[in-house]
């Protein structure tokens, strides 16, 4: 397959990885294998959901970000901030404080991403009124979900709502406002403070878009730490009068579970978490689900409040934002700030940009070969191999399941002798000697896992 074609924000640091295989076991697309005692990624299967990052006990999986100093390549430096950043702080911490910290870091403008959702509401309504589109329409907000559908449920691609995310709308808006004030496009840097890896991948290699208005990404944990430090040394910071959220209450919670679905007319449903989503899409693809008009799907529990780059508890973050939205009175939210006019005054311009125009292409993880006869041969072979594999999904072969190993074998990515059960029976029948078997085991799990190490997690002299 086209290696290197997909941009992934997740990288495995082999110097840190201990080959514990936890990531391999949680990956929803079976994109990880263990070789030489390290986790290896099959790139064309990865959907950037970040489950591996979450599960890694030694933090060997890192999420790339742009070098922060890159913001200074631009004269106008916009920070696009999602509401979940603010939701991580205690109620007393105001958006103006957060904004002030971001300015002290070098940004010239700070704008909340959720404003972009104002443009999406009518755009989604428009799509919902098109009778010829399949039902349910599936929100394309979460990039990990779009990629999951491309990889595992290609038949559902046509259900994806072809509208961009609030992030893109907010970015187009910021660029337009600055241009209207005389800035050149090349002078404008729009940086997104991202809560997850999937959004990074979406910015770096957009699906269904030819280009992106976003110049770079800054990981949210980095900004969170900066803000926390500064707030603890408050004296050095100057900020203006505290002002209420400038985002509408219903768009403020757009990124949380049911935040988007509750803004859409008709019978809507919101589902979060990769396993829940996968289970539902499986049924939807079987045509077992009827009566749903719009589906909001999020890879993370609690939506973006559960993003892998958040530092605070997801339930607290979600509750803080919901609480904020509940207590906001009409008039508290002032869409117009001193720097930025109301995004709705640009809705004509933005509505022209809101639709995804490029085709979203399938990239099936299941397809064994482009040639049907060949695929049939491979499938038959993989099923014959399954007759011999134990069906225990123990993972000792370095693949997440027996079926994954059997498919690896027919794809020439693996060998049947990787299976510990097969080797054991071969040794019993004197078809393989003990040395050969250990050699294979070491090739999968690496020599380190066969030597005593008292520093490992949970061991006598644990140290990292």
């Amino acid at each position, binding site marked *: 397959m086209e290696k290197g074609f997909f941009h992934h924000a997740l990288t495995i640091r082999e110097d840190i990885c201990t080959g514990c295989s936890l990531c391999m076991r949680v990956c929803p697309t079976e994109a990880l294998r263990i070789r030489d005692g390290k986790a290896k990624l099959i790139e064309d299967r990865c959907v950037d959901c970040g489950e591996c990052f979450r599960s890694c006990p030694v933090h060997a999986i890192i999420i790339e970000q742009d070098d922060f100093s890159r913001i200074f390549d631009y004269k106008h430096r916009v920070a696009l901030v999602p509401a979940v950043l603010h939701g991580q702080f205690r109620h007393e911490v105001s958006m103006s404080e957060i904004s002030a910290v971001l300015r002290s870091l070098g940004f010239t403008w700070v704008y909340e991403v959720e404003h972009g959702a104002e443009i999406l509401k009518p755009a989604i309504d428009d799509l919902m009124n098109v009778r010829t589109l399949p039902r349910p329409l599936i929100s394309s907000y979460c990039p990990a979900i779009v990629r999951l559908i491309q990889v595992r449920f290609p038949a559902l691609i046509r259900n994806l709502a072809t509208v961009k995310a609030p992030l893109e709308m907010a970015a187009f808006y910021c660029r337009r406002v600055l241009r209207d004030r005389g800035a050149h496009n090349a002078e404008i840097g729009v940086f997104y403070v991202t809560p997850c890896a999937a959004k990074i991948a979406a910015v770096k290699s957009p699906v269904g878009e030819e280009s992106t208005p976003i110049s770079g990404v800054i990981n949210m944990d980095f900004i969170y730490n900066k803000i926390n430090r500064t707030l603890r040394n408050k004296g050095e910071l100057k900020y203006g009068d505290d002002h209420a959220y400038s985002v509408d209450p219903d768009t403020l919670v757009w990124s949380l579970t049911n935040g988007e679905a509750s803004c859409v007319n008709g019978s809507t449903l919101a589902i979060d978490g990769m396993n829940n989503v996968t289970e539902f899409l499986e049924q939807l693809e079987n045509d*077992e689900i009827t009566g749903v008009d719009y589906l909001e799907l999020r890879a993370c529990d609690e939506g973006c409040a559960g993003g892998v780059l958040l530092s605070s508890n997801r339930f607290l973050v979600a509750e803080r934002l919901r609480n904020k939205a509940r207590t906001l009175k009409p008039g508290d939210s002032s869409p117009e700030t001193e720097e930025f006019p109301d995004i709705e005054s640009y809705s004509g311009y933005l509505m022209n940009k809101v639709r995804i125009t490029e085709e979203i292409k399938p990239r099936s993880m299941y397809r064994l070969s482009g040639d049907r006869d060949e*695929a*049939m041969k491979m499938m038959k072979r993989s099923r014959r191999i399954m007759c011999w594999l134990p069906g225990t999904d123990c993972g000792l072969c370095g693949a997440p399941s027996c079926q994954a190993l059997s498919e690896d074998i027919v794809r020439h990515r693996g060998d049947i002798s990787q299976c510990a059960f097969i080797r054991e029976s071969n040794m019993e029948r004197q078809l393989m000697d003990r040395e050969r078997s250990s050699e294979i085991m070491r090739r999968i799990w690496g020599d380190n896992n066969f030597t005593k190490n008292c520093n490992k997690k949970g061991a006598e002299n644990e140290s990292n």
Partner: protein
Amino acid sequence: MTFEYKVQGGDFTHAGYASSQVKKMLKQLGVDSVVIKRVVVCLYEAEVNIVAHARDGIISIVLDTDTILMKLTDNGPGIANIEQAMQKGYSTASPEVREMGFGAGMGLPNISANADRFLITSEPGTGTALEITINLNSAAV
């Protein structure tokens, strides 16, 4: 290749297993998603028919490079008037079955609309047998 799946009458909880398995195989073969959808619709509707009406039944699948043949046989009450059963909206499903969202009388017409070849034979008191064939190479119905 041939596969066989048993279907338990009345067990709506596990209906859909055969569809999921077949779907995965067709994805492995790189069959067009529109065709996969037609196969899955036929199979699921037929499977639910067995669950709704019969004591139990058997799905047997014959899969080759170009076609899929799905045979479903059950030992249910049988269909006295097949022509009537093939009409949209006609259903003999019990109120309990309808309550679960099944039994809208769209099953057989839906299968017929999505299959390239559809045979149905039934003997009242003995059971019903369906033979559904779909060509894996064409997307058109």
